[in-house]
């Protein structure tokens, strides 16, 4: 498995994701500068990391979505290869129309950094195949614009197609308003495209990938994608 982590000017979590991938997947892991027009040859997984690409100016993710590398990322996704956007990376994916919907300012209108619980809504995705269904994971969030919004009708479609991958829940796995940190529609924390090869989520699995830092629930995500690619072969 070959992974590439895109670095935009203003990316913050690039090194964190690189480290998590190096520790928990086998194969080559490399950074890619946003101004490149091509991804490294035979890249299986592209990660768009968290941070404040272009300072979040205009709208979070709006400028990064138009970076030179994004053309290659779109082609990569169109071939059925895998793309993961975390936090600001999720915002880039919606701005690039690789995922539906938009991420609006949190209901509290404040930045929120804290551990959250999310529930695995489906194991039928490359990113969650090694979890059990409805498993509750502790992933931290750290964002100002994380309220996932989509018109109700399209939301129904998303639900029907099994594109909702993670939802915010309480520690026992129950959905509630209190467990929804940012006011996201239907407690949505992460969604995939219809083909499920592109995933965006606001919480940070790379911050839950090391026992010394208080959590290992994210490791399953790296293992999921690794074994998915090993089983299905390169697209």
């Amino acid at each position, binding site marked *: 498995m070959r992974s590439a982590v895109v670095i935009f000017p203003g990316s913050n979590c690039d090194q964190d994701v690189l480290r998590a991938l190096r520790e928990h997947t086998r194969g080559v892991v490399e950074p890619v500068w946003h101004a490149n027009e091509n991804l490294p040859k035979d890249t299986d997984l592209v990660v768009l990391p968290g941070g404040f690409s272009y300072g*979040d100016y205009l709208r979070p993710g709006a400028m990064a979505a138009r970076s030179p590398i994004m053309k290659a990322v779109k082609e990569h996704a169109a071939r059925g290869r895998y793309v993961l956007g975390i936090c600001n990376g999720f915002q880039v994916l919606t701005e690039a129309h690789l995922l539906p919907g938009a991420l609006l300012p949190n209901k509290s209108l404040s*930045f929120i950094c804290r551990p959250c619980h999310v529930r695995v809504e489906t194991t039928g995705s490359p990113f969650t195949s090694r979890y059990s269904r409805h498993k509750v994971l502790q992933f931290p969030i750290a964002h100002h614009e994380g309220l996932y919004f989509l018109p109700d009708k399209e939301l129904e479609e998303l639900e029907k197609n099994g594109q909702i991958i993670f939802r915010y829940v309480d520690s026992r796995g129950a959905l509630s308003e209190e467990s929804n940190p940012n006011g996201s529609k239907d407690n949505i924390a992460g969604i995939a495209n219809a083909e499920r090869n592109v995933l965006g989520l606001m919480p940070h699995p790379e911050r839950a990938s090391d026992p010394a830092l208080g959590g290992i629930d994210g490791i399953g995500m790296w293992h999921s994608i690794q074994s998915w690619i090993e089983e299905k072969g390169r697209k």
Partner: protein
Amino acid sequence: MDYSAVGLSREEYDSLVDLLRREPNETELRLFGVMWSEHCSYKSTRPLLKQFLTSGPTVLQGPGENAGVVDLGKGWGLAFKVESHNHPSAVEPYQGAATGVGGIIRDILAMGARPTASMDGLFLGDPKNLKSHALAQGIVKGVGGYGNSVGVPTVGGKTFYHESYNKNPLVNAFCAGIVKLDNLVSSQTAKPGQKVLLLGAKTGRDGIAGAAFASVELNEDTRQSRPQVQIGDPFTEKRLIECCLELLEEKLVASMQDMGAAGVLSSSSEVASKSGVGMVLDLDKVPQRETNMQGWEIALSESQERMLLVVEPSKIHAVIRVAEKWDLDCTEFGIVTEEEEYVLREKGVVTASLPPALIGGNAPVIHWASREPEDLKSRSALPSFTPPEKWNELLLSLLTSPSLGKKNWIWEQYDSMVQTNTVEGPGQSVSVTRVLPSENYVAFSMEADPWKCFISPYQGGAETVAKALRSLAVAGASPLGLTDCLNFPSPEKSTQFWELQQCVAGMAECSKALECPVVSGNVSLYNEYPEGRILPTPLVVAAGMIPSLDTYIPSGKWQENDRIFLVGELEAAFGGSHYIYNRTGSFYGPLLPFDPEKEKDFLRRALETAAQGAANSGRPLAGGGLGVALAKETMACGFGLHVAITAPVRLDSFYFSEGGPRALYAVSPEKVEEFLDIWEKFPLIELGTVRGTHLHGMGAFNISVIDLQKAWEE
């Protein structure tokens, strides 16, 4: 132009003429007005700061550079410093606080270090006061807005509320970074023939003479000073960080300096002076954001996110290539010369020509009159009060008071985890971050105790430093060094200067006795309004090293059946305690005298406890005393404790007095013997065994842990 127009006194002007052996021209006078301001020259405090212990086996760089550096081992160092941004935050809270964070991050970067952890010390006014509430909201948003965006985690801090900060809140920004010692930057390494470059943002009129603005009292017209507050752009700062670290890794720069107070002038003259060289700078070549800027405006502008680089001519192309990658302006605008003359030119015409050492270094020391305040004795007199009848309510009221209560409304607005090295984030007595290259951990504790510093500046100063070191020791961190920020009102009032002197003497004495050198720091005076002054507020951050997480003792980790011990005296003092403030609305009362031998003994034993892994949880007693410490421990673990001692002391003193070396430990039954060996012949009592659902202090409070948690969460 008159010297008083630039803030100089008659004596200072005369001294300047003596040193120059001529009258300065107008441009030169403006430069000196800023460089000889209190903020830049430390003219009121230089003799005081000399008392600090500044060297020791851990110190690689003491005061004098952008930040101090201590040794982490394996060829790596820790650069750290705390700095105030008080006046700007009083005028424009969001930008004032944001640029405070940005400025301290560049100080760390200027040492060649990657900034890895920030903390903030906030001293805020009465939260019920609308004005101070609005300031607090803006400040917290500013700290978060900048720190989150640049990707440096805010791992902890200190927040203290008191009405003396209503109009003059204090914002102390701390940053630490790790530096490969091969890449350590010095301002002493510029050589003739090298070029001077400006990297980063364009220069505008923002913050012109901000340093001079920070050197006078605030007043009702201060809002007019808004042009003197700089505007931050964290996106540029983030690129500046990555760009500078890339330049250092490629060994492309000879020296580097951040542009803080007095911008181009102070950064370049400091390099010239410390390197023993001269410089010729063409100010019109500096990229400008505004039109028709005068030379002195360019020299003094405090526009943010700029760095001064000194580069070998052969490496300029390579430097510019890296800057282009990060989309940053990088412009050559001067040259280092052999002759020790600092020359500013505009369109080829010389506008200032001065000896470099004179600019930053020679401001005459001011010896302000010093006098013990007449009311000093009365500050140690305990107001009359009756012991509590409703103990449960008292405990809850302390736990939910602004200064002792939960502050997640603040720290949840800060990204405390980015860079994935945060082992212990905000809300604990220490913050702990992992240092991967040196394979160990660094703990930070930030402390301040303005009430005690007001009652007895000397004892309060000593207690502030001791508190920080106690937290480190209990966590298992051996001290590496400390940094301090001295926030005080005007030194021009003799009693206020006396407080400053005494506080520094107490701090210096304590850091010397406990062998923790002061490696960097900052002074902020003139924190007062016509209606009032701030309390004496020295803040310290101590850094310590934890070799492995096996020898780290966290707090809040009681386990069922653990035995709970109080080490230290049964009671401390009521002066400056949250209990007395709660009961009477005054914080006056007696303090404990600083006892260096006892402190040292405590630190040694606490470190030994951690090294032997003899306890599961440890918490030094601080604000709110034993009662609040017990409540915080029980809330964190969810278990109760029944304290059934018949102490030969007043119960309110046992539970709520403050000061001196005392700590609470939770020890597994099988480790008790080992633990008692370590603490043999040190005052100690066993409080009880962890079990049940209630925190019960016999004769005092008896309250369920769930009720404590509920009150805390609200």
